[in-house]
């Protein structure tokens, strides 16, 4: 009998404090003989003792396996309990679930990532994956640009990651809604950064962040000439099962956990989606 809902225990090997709200939990499965693989954009159902489960995107690249990173913002009971965990503690995971980003379509493309807050987590997996393949003739993207918005300088997550990406040739542009006295960088919404960048026929855009950000960025990208098939986002919805039966993520005839969470704009346009609402 296939026990669909029995998680596999995993150990927290390391906790990377990203900011006051977000930490990255570096996990390894206890039973290393369990076959586990995934692609960027997929998610796990994470179990924390006595707290049930929550759907969390994998923020590391599959090329980093057996290490699995989950970058988690304190948002509710489970995520707050997760932030109380220490290195060496165990959690449960099952998955991976959902459709990944179509990585093969990104070869030789100019990739434009637009992220807000914790929305960078699923995109980080894609960027790391692309950078791993950057020296490969057959698998490399043409260029990688990241536009990343945070509320304030202290809300910026993945600081060391972005500076590391910059060194590897990623064009990283950070912006904050509100500056503090030390902030030297850009101030304003991530939507203000976008018009300064070129969108061509070869651009593929990957967008993740708050729904309102997704809505405005997608509208901007379309206005700048980006094709519907070349704009991707990943949707966040309340989920309980991950396998398309609990009904919570039902979206106009589709299940976000099974048919998404990654959708192209051309797919989204056929659905009644909050992220595209006027």
């Amino acid at each position: 009998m296939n026990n669909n809902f029995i998680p596999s225990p995993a150990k927290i090997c390391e906790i990377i404090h990203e900011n006051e709200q977000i930490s990255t939990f570096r996990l390894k499965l206890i039973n290393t003989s369990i076959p586990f693989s995934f692609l960027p954009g997929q998610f796990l159902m994470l179990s924390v003792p006595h707290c049930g489960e929550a759907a969390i995107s994998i923020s590391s690249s599959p090329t980093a396996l057996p290490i699995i990173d989950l970058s988690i913002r304190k948002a509710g009971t489970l995520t707050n309990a997760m932030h109380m965990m220490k290195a060496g503690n165990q959690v449960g995971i099952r998955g991976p679930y959902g459709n990944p980003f179509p990585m093969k379509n990104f070869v030789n493309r100019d990739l434009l990532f637009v992220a807000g807050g914790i929305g960078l987590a699923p995109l980080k997996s894609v960027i790391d994956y692309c950078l791993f393949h950057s020296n490969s003739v057959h698998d490399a993207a043409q260029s990688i640009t990241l536009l990343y918005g945070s509320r304030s300088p202290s809300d910026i997550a993945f600081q060391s990651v972005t500076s590391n990406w910059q060194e590897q040739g990623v064009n990283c542009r950070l912006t904050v809604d509100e500056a503090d006295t030390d902030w030297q960088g850009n101030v304003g919404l991530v939507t203000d950064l976008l018009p300064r960048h070129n969108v061509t026929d070869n651009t593929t855009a990957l967008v993740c962040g708050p729904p309102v950000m997704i809505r405005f960025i997608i509208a901007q990208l379309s206005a700048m000439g980006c094709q519907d098939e070349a704009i991707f986002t990943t949707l966040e919805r309340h989920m309980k099962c991950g396998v398309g039966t609990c009904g919570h993520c039902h979206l106009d005839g589709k299940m976000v956990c099974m048919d998404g969470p990654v959708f192209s704009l051309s797919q989204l346009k056929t659905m009644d989606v909050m992220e595209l609402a006027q």
Partner: protein
Amino acid sequence: MIDLKELILSKDNLIPLLRKLKKDARLIAPIKNEYGDTLFSEIDDIDAMKIDLHNQPQASLKPFFLPQQETLAGYTVNNGEYSFTPPDKAQDTIFFGVRSCDLTALLYMDLIFSKPSKDATYYDRRNHSLIITLGCNQPFANCFCEATGSGPYLEYGYGLQFIDLGDRYFVSAGRGKGADLLKKWAYFFREVNEEDQKKRYQLFLEARGQFTRNIQVAHACQKLQEEAVPEEIWETLSRRCYDCGGCAYVCPTCTCYSIDDMAQGTNHGIRVRSWDACTSSGFTRMAGGHNPTDRSRYALKRRFLHKLKHDYAHHGKPSCTGCGRCVDICFGGVDITTFIDLLTTQKTT
């Protein structure tokens, strides 16, 4: 050699047959309890309990396959080790007196819980079950199964289908367990004759003529494929929905659920799956409070579109089986028949 697919059972032989069946499996049938409610219940003593085949069971078979609350796993945290144990196994169960609508609903649940892989606890129970249905010769007050294509008699899906011919039952066997059962207990039955066939057909025609409600289900499904529902219909319905979840709980095809942990001590607990209702305000709310559904306007949109639009598009038929239970339970009067009536009588602009 007699044909084992269709046989006649004298009503005098019903209890003796059920007594035999009960020796090998748990027996569940509609029983009227002390409060006057007819509910599917386990039969301990077949001579002491009165099987009620005259009233519609107030709950469907759903609780026996997707229980209101069930344990999916046990968990323990011991010296930092977090481990899980599988749930209890199902036992062989025979259901007797199941109505056509409720078996149709079960066949729909089979579909839902088969993808992407078979749901372990659901299919464990399903594989250990045999369903004996009773065709309806007289629809109940709110029934409209003829409009949903799920009654009053069934063509397939049952282990055995009983049709009441007065002093006897006309029994049809499905494939597998049902046919095996007829073979095993053949001495309770006699062969079908021409008069039995005629009587069965006559009762079927009469039953179809007795529906008092004319619900335009097919028209509604078709219309939903072609055009959007006017906003005022959603708003009218939402104003009268009180977030009780009753419709989803009594519905034999509402399968939405939640999964939560129930601690049973500091170091252990159980992971529980329980019924949920998409009409409830917290159904789509995410951690942090963001909610993609505006309940004040669209409380019932997801439920009705799922059953009549999306399932019709995916499976070729709606996932409403016309059992009418939501009509009884909804004190706001905004059950699925209200929606279908509003939609189908509304003029196309």
